[in-house]
Structures are given as C-alpha cells and as structure tokens.
C-alpha cells in the first residue's frame, strides 16, 4: 500500500477540518501560556489552503505540499505561519517527482520536514514547542518503517508518539516561543503548537489508511 495524491489531498483537507474543529481549543491552550491566537491563526491559514488545493489542476504531491506551504506562509503570520510553512515546504521538497509514497518515503519526508522546522525555529526537543510532538512522530515512523511495519501500523505508532509528545509538554518549562516569557509559570500547560502538530500527524494517519 502506498500514499496517493488523493490521499495526500485528503490529509491536507483532513488537517484543515481538524484545525477548524479544534480552533477554540487551540486558542484556549494559547491563552494559558501565549497570546490566544493559535487556533485562529491556524484556521485562517488552513481555510486559505482549502480554498486553494481543491482546484489544483494536474498537481502532484510535491506541488500540493508546496502550495500548502506558501499559502500558510502568506496567510498565518505569527510563529506558526513560517514554521508550518517550513514543514510543508520540507514535505514538498522531499517528495519531489514521486506520484506515490511508500512508508519509507513518508518517513523520510516527515523527518526532513521536521529537521527543516528545527533549523528555522532553533527549538530542541524539550523546549515545549511543536517539535515535542513532531520529532517523536518522525523518529517512531522511521523506526517502524525500518522494522518493516505496514503503513497502517507505522502511522498508528507515529500518531501515538505525537500524542505522547504533546502530553509530555505539559510539565515542561518553555524555552522557545512566547510561552518562554512566562518562565516557570509555563509548566502545567499543554503547548498549543504541539497540539496542532498532533492533529497534523493524526490527519495523515486517517487519510493514508482510509480506503481509497
């Protein structure tokens, strides 16, 4: 089984739907340790993406992800705009020329994309950012792929890792992003960006394992 363009599109659209559904929740998380806009930001961006990707004529997966990236960069702003933009740009670059993605392909693409986000944002795992969901997701996916897991199993592991990473942000003291200004007071709250990243990984699992 491999990921098709339709599944890639379903992933982007599913991510948009998940963001829309969790918009108030993400903003609430951002109220606690940030400036109360993460849900609004991501939703503004993903709605713009939805409006674009539905009508991409003859695009391939790389173009799909790059269009998503450019749209996010030019509509989101804040920290999450450039960072999610960089993530999708990384995905788009990694899948250049591919019409279908194997488990390895997706694993490599996600790893490269997360690396690009880290390069841009300079966050390490443990800094209480989206990296805390994304890095374990990418790591576990690659391991699962190396262990020869099915796409389905690999994606499930990946989603689980993201969820655990997201939850693990709760006790952390933030060292990057807006939450870092709170110092010790940032502990005890779940990072909004890690939460949207878990939604992203979950959307990928749902889209890539759905019957096509």
């Amino acid at each position, binding site marked *: 089984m491999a990921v098709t363009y339709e599944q890639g599109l379903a992933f982007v659209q599913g991510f948009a739907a998940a963001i829309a559904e969790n918009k108030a929740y993400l903003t609430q998380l951002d109220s606690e340790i940030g400036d109360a806009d993460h849900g609004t930001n991501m939703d503004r961006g993903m709605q713009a993406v939805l409006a674009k990707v539905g009508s991409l004529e003859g695009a391939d997966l790389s173009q799909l992800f790059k269009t998503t990236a450019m749209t996010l960069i030019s509509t989101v702003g804040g920290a999450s705009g450039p960072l999610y933009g960089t993530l999708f740009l990384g995905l788009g670059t990694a899948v250049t020329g591919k019409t279908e993605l194997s488990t390895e392909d997706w694993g490599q693409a996600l790893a490269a994309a997360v690396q690009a986000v880290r390069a841009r944002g300079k966050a390490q795992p443990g800094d209480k950012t989206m990296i805390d969901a994304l890095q374990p997701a990418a790591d576990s996916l690659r391991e699962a792929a190396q262990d020869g897991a099915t796409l389905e199993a690999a994606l499930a592991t990946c989603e689980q890792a993201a969820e655990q990473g997201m939850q693990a942000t709760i006790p952390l003291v933030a060292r990057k992003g807006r939450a870092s200004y*709170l110092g010790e007071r940032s502990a005890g709250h779940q990072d909004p960006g890690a939460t949207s990243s878990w939604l992203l990984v979950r959307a990928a699992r749902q889209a890539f394992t759905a019957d096509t």
Partner: protein
Amino acid sequence: MKKLINRVEDVVKEELEGIVAAHSDLVRVHFAPNYVVRVDAPVSGKTALVSGGGSGHEPMHGGFVGMGMLDAACPGEVFTSPTPDQILEATKAVSGGAGVLHIVKNYTGDILNFEMAADLAKADDIEVEAVVINDDVAVQDSLYTAGRRGVGTTVLAEKICGAAAEAHASLKDVAELCRRVNANGRSMGMALTSCTVPAAGKPTFDLGEQEMEIGIGIHGEPGRERRALASADEVVEMLTRPIVEDLPFKRGDSVLAFVNGMGGTPLIELYIVYRALSRYLDGVGVKIGRKLIGPYITSLEMAGCSITLLRLDDEMTRLWDAPVNTPGLRWGV
C-alpha cells in the same frame, strides 16, 4: 466581549480604513497585503525604516508612519506577526535606493517572518538590515531561550532612527544607532486587567479584584508573577528597580522616561505613575532629560502600564527633539 467593532474578522482591515480616512495627508494604506506607507514613499536616497508586528498595539506601528519616523508599517492580525509577503511588499514600496532597515521586536513570529521577508527582498536586490529590539527586563535572558521581548524601546528607536534617516544617515549608521538605542533602553510592564483578543472572544486570563500581573508583555499574555494589588508608588518601584539595576542606570545618567498606558488606563493614572517614577529616579540620582506619557504601545483594552527608560546621549536627544509628523507623534511641524 464589549468592543466598538463590527465583525471580528474585519477588525484590522477596518482599523486601517479608519487610519487612511483620517490621515491621508500623512499616510497611504495598501490592502491585501496590508501595509501603511508614508504619503511620499519611496523617498529617493533615504534609508527606509520598516517595522511591523501584530495589530492591537495602536498607535504602534501604523500611527508612527510619516515624516521623521517610519516609512512603512506592516500590521498583522491582532497579536499575530505579519507575513513575509506583506513585509516584502512594504519593503519594496518604500525602498528609495539607500537600503531598508527592519526594526523587529523580539518575538519568534516577528523574527521568522521578517527574516523570510529580508531574504526575499535581498533576492530582489534591496539592501536590508534588521535590528531586533529586546528591552523587556521581565524576561530572563539566555542563549537557550527566545530571550527578551521587544516592548517600549521600540517606539523610541523608531522615533530616534526615523530622525536620523530623515537627515539622510546611511543604512549602516541608522542600524548602528538603532542597536545603540536598544542597548540603552530597558522596559517592564504590568496589568490590572486582561485584554480580550477579538477572535478569542473572552479575556486571555482571569485576574481577581485584588490581583495584578507584573512582568507582562504587550500581547495580553500573563506576566512573570501574579501579585496582590498594590499602590501606584509600589507598582512603580516594582517596575523601575529591575529596570534601573539591569542596565544599570547610574547616578548622573540622563534618561528619556516613557510611561506607557496599556490601552485601558486613562491619563490621570499615567500622571500619577509618572509622578512616582520621577520621585524614584530622583532618589537614585537619575535625571529625566526627556519624557513621553500616554498610550503608545498598547495591548488592546488592557488596563495597566509599562515603564521604559532610555539612557540618552547628545545625539539621541537631538534626534528625539527633531521634527516628527505622524498620526501618533507630532512635534516641530
């Protein structure tokens, strides 16, 4: 949520429409992407100053566009950094051939978006320098964190560097001046109430009748510490002592003292704060050479204030006094 707005989605757009309806003698506004430029932009041969950041801090930055201050401002959504294309377009619109200075407040989002915009502008053969303002002593600085926020010193840097650029200082010199202003400016803020981000629809944090937040930024985020409500004199000491100790400001220094309202605090209280500040500085032998009092870098309707001290030298003082004509600051003209 009680605000004089229409749809929450239209807040920034309609505010900009209001600005251009009011100040078409001083600025032009471009929509989609949104930016404000001085009416005579681009000024040929002049180093152009571009700043920007989330909206909700009015009059900063759009209100500081005009003769003697900014050439362009890029307003993002409320409390959301502007996007790279927006900054790029503004940069192009004001580029007069002598380079463009980006004055960036130290927030991850602002840094990243301005960085991307600068890369794109350079690809278009526009010389761009960026100076990051990070003056908030409430935040512990460290190599491993996002560092200090940019707050009140931004307004002072925009005025002082704007005057230098107006006098045709080179990009290199204006950038260096901007770094010097940042190096000599320190701020700290506090809140009596939270603000409400329009799209969020409810206060960012809850604060009891007998509580206040010390060490807030300008995005309605909670501060470093929640404390029992205190008197104006005590609040001023809580804010000013860390500022003075941080630089440190020394006996005999002359400073620009900036008492800033967060949006919901009226002038009568800011003068009571200024009184306390002038007494405090008197006590430590620091002289107030210049002052600014009012709501200049706000957090929507938050009640509270921030204090900024900038150690002045003769050049900064002269540039501060130079004429300025913007919607938000005007003198000498």
